[in-house]
């Protein structure tokens, strides 16, 4: 198997990882296709429901290419996917690409802003807690983060609505209404609560990993050496400790970004934010299978790509792993 081929150095590792990622993606596409279209039973009936007339069933079967052999169906779907043709939404009667593009932009802005805020914040909290280990800041933040990390995102979201948008105070809008044809950057107040929710959900986890990783590094011999050389504490932290502590953190950040891709389903729904998450929820309720297929592939591809980047980044920043290749 590919993983067994020892093909030297960093470029070899990257090529191996990319090939593995592609194989996983092909498998994912087969799973998505099989689950949504080639399943035993009649997708046309599943979509239209029991009250459908034979005529409308026949028309939908033709539209979904259900009259063709399964392999041909898969091939048509896959090549369409690669050419950016994701089919036609059954609910909106619009090409899926046209339907999803503005929502994808909205969701990307939401995830990007959340990531840009939460990652440095959690690295700072985690490092500071590691440096002040067992002191008041560490004890308080560790316990708070532990509790926050366990609370589901929709609970966090509704509590924020309760505190900041309805019962307790009315500082922010409870609904993040972004009109079609307009970008979320024009409505910063609409972004605050969804972003705050995602930051509260993601930051504790990353901060806890940063703390654990940092403590391990701070106890190592080379940090002791750097301190004994009389380097200022700031240099020791930023130049010597942080880069080595960030290796495992990349993995966690990638997992978290991938998680955000799934977590936005619930958060976007709470705030009625027009993104791919709420689109997925609507598509599921409407049995809009072409949209479900497209979003499942999109989110899975994102996950595979992020994992790939995390593996490569970990290798790049961790010298002792690089030499092992």
């Amino acid at each position, binding site marked *: 198997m590919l993983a067994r081929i020892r093909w030297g150095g960093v470029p070899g590792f990257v090529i191996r990882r990319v090939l593995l990622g592609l194989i996983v*993606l092909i498998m994912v596409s087969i799973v998505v296709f099989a689950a949504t279209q080639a399943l035993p039973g009649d997708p046309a009936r599943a979509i239209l429901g029991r009250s459908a007339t034979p005529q409308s069933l026949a028309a939908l079967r033709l539209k979904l290419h259900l009259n063709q052999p399964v392999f041909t169906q898969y091939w048509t779907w896959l090549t369409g996917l690669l050419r950016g043709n994701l089919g036609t939404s059954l609910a909106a009667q619009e090409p899926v690409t046209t339907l999803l593009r503005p929502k994808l932009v909205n969701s990307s802005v939401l995830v990007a802003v959340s990531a840009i805020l939460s990652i440095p914040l959690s690295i700072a909290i985690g490092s500071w807690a590691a440096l002040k280990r067992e002191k008041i800041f560490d004890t308080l933040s560790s316990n708070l983060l532990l509790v926050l990390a366990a609370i589901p995102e929709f609970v966090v979201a509704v509590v924020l609505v309760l505190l900041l948008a309805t019962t307790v105070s009315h500082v922010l809008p409870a609904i993040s209404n972004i009109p079609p044809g307009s970008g979320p950057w024009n409505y910063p107040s609409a972004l605050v609560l969804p972003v705050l929710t995602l930051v509260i*959900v993601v930051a504790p986890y990353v901060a806890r990993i940063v703390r654990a990783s940092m403590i391990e590094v701070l106890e190592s011999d080379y940090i002791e050496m750097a301190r004994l050389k009389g380097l200022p504490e700031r240099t020791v932290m930023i130049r010597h400790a942080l880069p080595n502590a960030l290796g495992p953190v990349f993995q966690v950040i990638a997992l978290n970004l991938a998680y955000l891709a799934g977590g936005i389903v619930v958060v976007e729904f709470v705030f009625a934010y027009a993104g791919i998450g709420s689109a997925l929820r609507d598509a599921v309720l409407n049995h809009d299978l072409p949209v479900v297929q497209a979003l499942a592939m999109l989110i899975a591809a994102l996950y595979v790509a992020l994992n790939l980047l995390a593996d490569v980044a970990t290798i790049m920043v961790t010298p002792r792993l690089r030499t092992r290749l």
Partner: protein
Amino acid sequence: MIPAAGPDVAAAGVPLETPPVRATSLLRRSLRLWRTRIGVGLVGLLVLLAIVGPFVAPYGQSAPVGAPNALPGGKAALGTDYLGQDVLSRLLDGGRSILITAFIATAAGLIVGVVIGLIAAYARNALDDVLMRAMDVIMAFPQIMLALVAVAVVGAHAWVIVVALALTTVPRIARVARGAALPVVERDFIACAEAMGVPRWRILFVELLPNTLGPLMVEASLRMTYSIAVIAALAFLGLSTDPNGANWGTMIYENQTVLPIQPWGAVAPIIAIALLTMGTGLIGDGIARTAAGIDRSRGGE
């Protein structure tokens, strides 16, 4: 609610030596920590509420008891919801289905995941690669998304949600089981068992499994937390198995629009879910700390 980092994270450091740990002794030791005690207390309280609740609920879960959105007081201790149903009764009824579904899904995922992970670690050949790549494929779908797709295709039945959740639990457990078992497979007592002609299934489940329990218990409690969260989130998205039934997730969904008038319809189930997941989270952290402590003390021997 973040998927746990796989063993890759640990792989970036030195592979941990997993000392043999009896599950019961690990649990007992972890109970010395206050966080575990608080966690057990919270989970116990909520489980009790979910089991006993339906019997002590003053009204039926869908019985109208008064005007909609009435504030607490009078006949309804926590007020009424957007349909005039008793919030307290629905709160007492709404935990059982979440807990049962989460428990079955996690247990099923745990069993299958452990079997796959141990087989992969013990095989160390092409079978290992095939199994773990298959796990990667499932891992490429966020839990909530796979559950949503399953519900979209098959419908919102309880078994669909259980299967979808178990399926997404399997690869995460399998990676931890494999990661914990890999260093154990290399040790002498496994080679010894092989030489003595011990059957393979005995090596897997009698020799290998007890040596991977520490990390597995941590991961299992984490998975239970996520299972609860995903099931509640599905109900919150309007995809519960029984649209009219009381369910903490459904209650939050139904009553969030009336938050300014009668907050308790949403706040009561919010508190219940938050306490439950905090409890499982604290238990997991307690076990993790205890397992890590055992590692350290053995390393110092």
